[in-house]
């Protein structure tokens, strides 16, 4: 998009903002429309500026190179090394930028850190960069909230996000940060709009991001040392994340929202005899498992790649009968859920 298209929109944008500042509550309808126009204009201008600057700024080459990562990693490492002492700084900047520009996925840059700096150092730099980026998102959202959101969004709606600042909300947020594949960058903006305190946000986002960052760094340094994905289970990994993060957790969240937790006792009973018994049983169980596992040793077979093609072939030839049976199971589940969910089911 050519940047010149931005100029007429600037007029609309400022008009909308000026009207927003001068307007009274009586004209909220037209105000809201103007606010929406202003928001769209802001996005368009941002996009135009982004496209215009894309060719000029140094990170273009850096970023394009990081996307070509899998084709030529020797050249990539050489490129990063060519930054010399500035390489860590450049890497941290890319990590932070990747968070602020939310649609860019962080997985690629996380791998990059492991490839260039090794596991531990890459993890350190990634964490610093991600923290800076998260704080930037949070600050931008806070600023926007004070400037725009509080003025246009009714109090009742913004109050609905306040559950995020209570204890169980903080745990839910933390879990969201831990889940691999969850859009954490958008989450930072969302949390900036809630009334979560700075300190809590910093703690939750930094610690919550750490496990994923560590795994990416390990994976990256593995790639550098020549062993690609240790498990050739790409399809299974992708589908698991999609099903769990996308479907099951959303389902759980819906049910959690249906249930009023203020009335529910969430306390864990402190050390009942049954809890102690379960603990002892658990430890025994683990010891038992461990002893069995120690006996397991397999001659290393040659790696198989769990691509969609290979798994699909197996699924529709040798495993076709269980596959058809699962469809019956799913049908039964659908029917029973429909029956259960009907209002007068009981």
């Amino acid at each position, binding site marked *: 998009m050519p940047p010149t298209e931005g100029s007429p929109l600037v007029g609309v944008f400022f008009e909308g903002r000026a009207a927003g500042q001068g307007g009274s509550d009586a004209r909220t309808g037209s105000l809201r429309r103007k606010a929406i126009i202003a928001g769209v204009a802001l996005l368009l201008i941002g996009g135009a500026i982004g496209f215009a600057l894309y060719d000029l700024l140094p990170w273009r080459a850096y970023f394009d190179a990081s996307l070509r990562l899998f084709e030529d990693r020797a050249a990539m490492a050489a490129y990063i090394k060519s930054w010399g002492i500035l390489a860590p700084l450049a890497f941290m900047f890319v990590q932070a930028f990747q968070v602020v520009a939310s649609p860019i996925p962080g997985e690629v840059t996380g791998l990059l850190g492991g490839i260039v700096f090794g596991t531990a150092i890459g993890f350190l730099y990634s964490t610093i960069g991600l923290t800076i980026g998260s704080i930037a998102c949070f600050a931008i959202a806070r600023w926007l909230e004070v400037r725009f959101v509080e003025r246009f969004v009714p109090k009742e709606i913004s109050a609905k996000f306040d559950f995020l600042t209570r204890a169980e909300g903080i745990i839910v947020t933390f879990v969201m940060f831990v889940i691999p594949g969850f859009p954490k960058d958008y989450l930072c903006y969302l949390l900036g709009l809630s009334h979560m305190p700075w300190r809590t946000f910093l703690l939750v986002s930094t610690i919550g991001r750490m496990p994923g960052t560590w795994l990416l760094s390990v994976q990256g340094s593995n790639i550098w040392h020549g062993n690609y994905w240790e498990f050739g*289970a790409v399809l299974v990994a992708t589908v698991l994340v999609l099903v769990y993060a996308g479907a*099951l957790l959303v389902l759980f969240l819906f049910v959690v929202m249906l249930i009023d937790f203020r009335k529910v006792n969430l306390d864990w009973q402190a050390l009942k005899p049954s809890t102690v018994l379960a603990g002892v049983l658990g430890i025994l169980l683990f010891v038992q498992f461990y002893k069995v596992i120690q006996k397991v040793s397999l001659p*290393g077979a040659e790696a198989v790649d769990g691509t969609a093609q290979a798994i699909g072939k197996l699924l529709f030839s040798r495993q076709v009968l269980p596959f058809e049976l699962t469809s019956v199971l799913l049908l039964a589940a659908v029917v*029973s859920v429909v029956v259960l969910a009907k209002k007068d089911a009981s």
Partner: protein
Amino acid sequence: MIGLNHYLVVAALLFVIGFLASSCARNILLVLLSIELILNSANLSFVAFSSFLGDLTGQVMVFFTMIVAAAEITVALAIVVLLYRKKRSTDTDTLNTLKW
């Protein structure tokens, strides 16, 4: 180098945590979540064995486990919602109508 045994130990840990949580948790949602944990520990060992035996059947099994888990969780959550409507609680200790 991470070997097969490391993955199996992680799977065993997941299983034990899921077992402990499902037997100690008093909130029925937590019980369901820990059952997911147990299912996924099985998934992990399936994938580990599949990778170290060079046989893709283990990965196909994960798909079946996932389908069963999805079916189970949808039905279970529907039951949880119904229970909550009847009892106004998700505490497992209140579900004692089968006791005599």
